[in-house]
């Protein structure tokens, strides 16, 4: 499944994985490596904190329940010491208030277990992008598609495309992470601000509406469906 993902413009990331379950840790290390990233692993909270303070990591993946020092305390300690490395918290507790706690402690994203690796990878890659200036740009460009965030204007080949406000935000999010996989849950969380499972794939219909406005009448499609994972905006074929 990960084989079809092209790391694209994303260079290899240095990741720190803090997870006490050996099987899960081995699986994740292998999977991240196959996706082209470098992974350091710590088996408990104290070791994780030591490694995090020591090394330079692009993203940290921290399990919430850890021996020696729990995940939330680790993140809070890091933030207290001024470290801004993006952190994704993994947890078996997936309820609304737990997620709020995780983010309040200084986590940047929260993923409940069990998760699909594609989901975790997409989120970790998105977090690594945050460190870069992408979020601050006012105009996103992918091939001949342009989105002006300030003027709320979308053009393709210089021709203006009319979008609903939500469609605009959807495209904005997809283009911000151009070249990366964006999952349906990421869209639901970031474009709609909902953190629940809508049972039916409502997002697909929104994306296909958006696609009909962006790609219809053009030879090269820009919004791609990544099977088993989500969507990606990019110039070439996926």
């Amino acid at each position, binding site marked *: 499944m990960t084989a079809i993902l092209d790391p694209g413009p994303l260079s290899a990331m240095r990741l720190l994985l803090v997870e006490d379950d050996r099987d899960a840790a081995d699986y994740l290390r292998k999977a991240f490596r196959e996706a082209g990233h470098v992974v350091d692993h710590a088996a408990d909270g104290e070791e994780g904190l030591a490694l995090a303070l020591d090394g330079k990591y692009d993203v940290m993946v921290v399990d919430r329940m850890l021996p020696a020092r729990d995940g939330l305390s680790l993140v809070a300690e890091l933030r207290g010491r001024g470290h801004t490395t993006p952190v994704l918290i993994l947890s078996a507790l*997936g*309820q*609304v*208030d737990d997620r*709020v706690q995780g983010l309040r402690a200084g986590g940047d994203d929260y993923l409940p277990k*069990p998760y*699909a690796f594609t989901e975790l990878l997409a989120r970790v890659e998105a977090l690594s992008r945050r460190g870069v200036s992408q979020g601050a740009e006012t105009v996103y460009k992918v091939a001949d598609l342009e989105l002006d965030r300030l003027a709320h204007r979308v053009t393709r080949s210089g021709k203006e495309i009319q979008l609903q406000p*939500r469609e605009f935000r959807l495209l904005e999010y997809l283009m911000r992470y151009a070249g990366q996989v964006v999952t349906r849950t990421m869209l639901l969380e970031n474009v*709609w601000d*909902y*953190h*629940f*499972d*809508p*049972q*039916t794939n*409502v997002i697909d*219909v*929104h994306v296909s*509406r958006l696609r009909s406005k962006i790609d219809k009448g053009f030879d090269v499609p820009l919004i791609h469906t990544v099977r*088993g994972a989500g969507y990606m905006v990019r110039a070439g074929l996926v």
Partner: protein
Amino acid sequence: MSPLGHAARLVRTTAFKLLAAYLVVFAVFAVSVIVYTAWHTRELIQGQVADDLDREVRFLSDQYRIGGIQRLVYVIDRRTRRPGSSIYMLANFQGEVLATNVSDLPIGLLDRPGTRFTTYNRPDDPGTNIHVAFVQAMILPGGYRLLVGRDIEERDTLRDLVARPAQWAVLLIVVLGLAGGVFVTRRVLKRIDSMTATAETIMAGNLSGRLAMMGTEDEFDRLAHSLNAMLDRIEGLMQGLKEVSDNIAHDLKTPLTRLRNRAEEALRSARTEDDWRAALETTIEESDGLIRTFDALLMIARAEAGQGRATMGDVDLAEIAVAVSELYEPLADEQGLDLVVETQPVTVHGVKELLAQALSNLIDNAIKYGRPTGGGRGRIAVSLRREGPDAVLAVADTGPGIPASERERVVERFVRLEVSRTRPGSGLGLSLVGAVARLHGGSLTFADNAPGLVARLVLPTK
């Protein structure tokens, strides 16, 4: 239980202790009243005796003034012969007794004028009986000593006449009170023992046991009534739990079995890489479905247990109604349904995320089951209205609806009216909406939309 142990239990009961305390208070009060009455009676009689003596002494000294000593002796003689409690003594200045009806008076009594108590003997009763009298002595002109007195035995008899029955009455009341206390306490103990026995059989596992009601509508009946109501609730919950675990067993085991079968099938017969891949992909799909069912169950359990109250805040329901409708509008449109939304500004105290999920489940349900039976485009109307103190979030469709008899059942966990279960979904969507409604102190009801179904999520705004 030994008689002694039984008595000890009796004495330890609250009823008995109350009664004993009451008896002590009553006895102290009654004894005080008796003592006071006796003392007062005595004082009253004493005063009367003193007045009497005073009058007689004056009368006798008048007699002396009028007729000299002879007349006085004569009058006293006559008086001493009358029966009664009066005593007299008249003597001259040398101490010679001129007239009397007593035999033995303390020496010197006659020489001290005034009133006092004294003992004396009667000539008709010279034995050992010592009599007590209240006397008044006086010295008449010419040196004569006059003493008039009254025996006070009668006074004491009268006092006793008043006090003794009262003492008996108090004693009787205390004894009867204690007996009554034992009787009442034993009755109370019996009721409590029977309640304890019932409680023990219930704890032993017989949840259908109920406490007996005596029909007396006393506090025991009221207690039994409340406890029985509590037992009804517990039994209902246990019943629900049993159904849920049965359903969980069914809804989790069925896909688990399917999952296992697919894996076995792939192991046995998959030949090409594509076969393997397809088998693994369906395996992941199935496990995703399982996770979804599991998540929904956890969420319902949490909402039912009241967790999530901590994250409650003011929630703009209109915003949720518009946003969730907008989320589902393209899907509804694709399915041949027009989704329209109409709102009034309403704010409730709640969990935004859960309310959004509840509405999303209702709309999802309407999209799945709300298509018109005769074909053609259907319509889903989402509306938010204020009705008195409540906010009513309604989702109405134009589908086939639900028969009135089955509307109650749809909120129960796992109930899907479609027996074949062909359409996707965990069957928990509406149960979750129901749980969210209860968490917010509201309710989920269904009504006829003629044609179609209207689901009403009623939430209190206060």
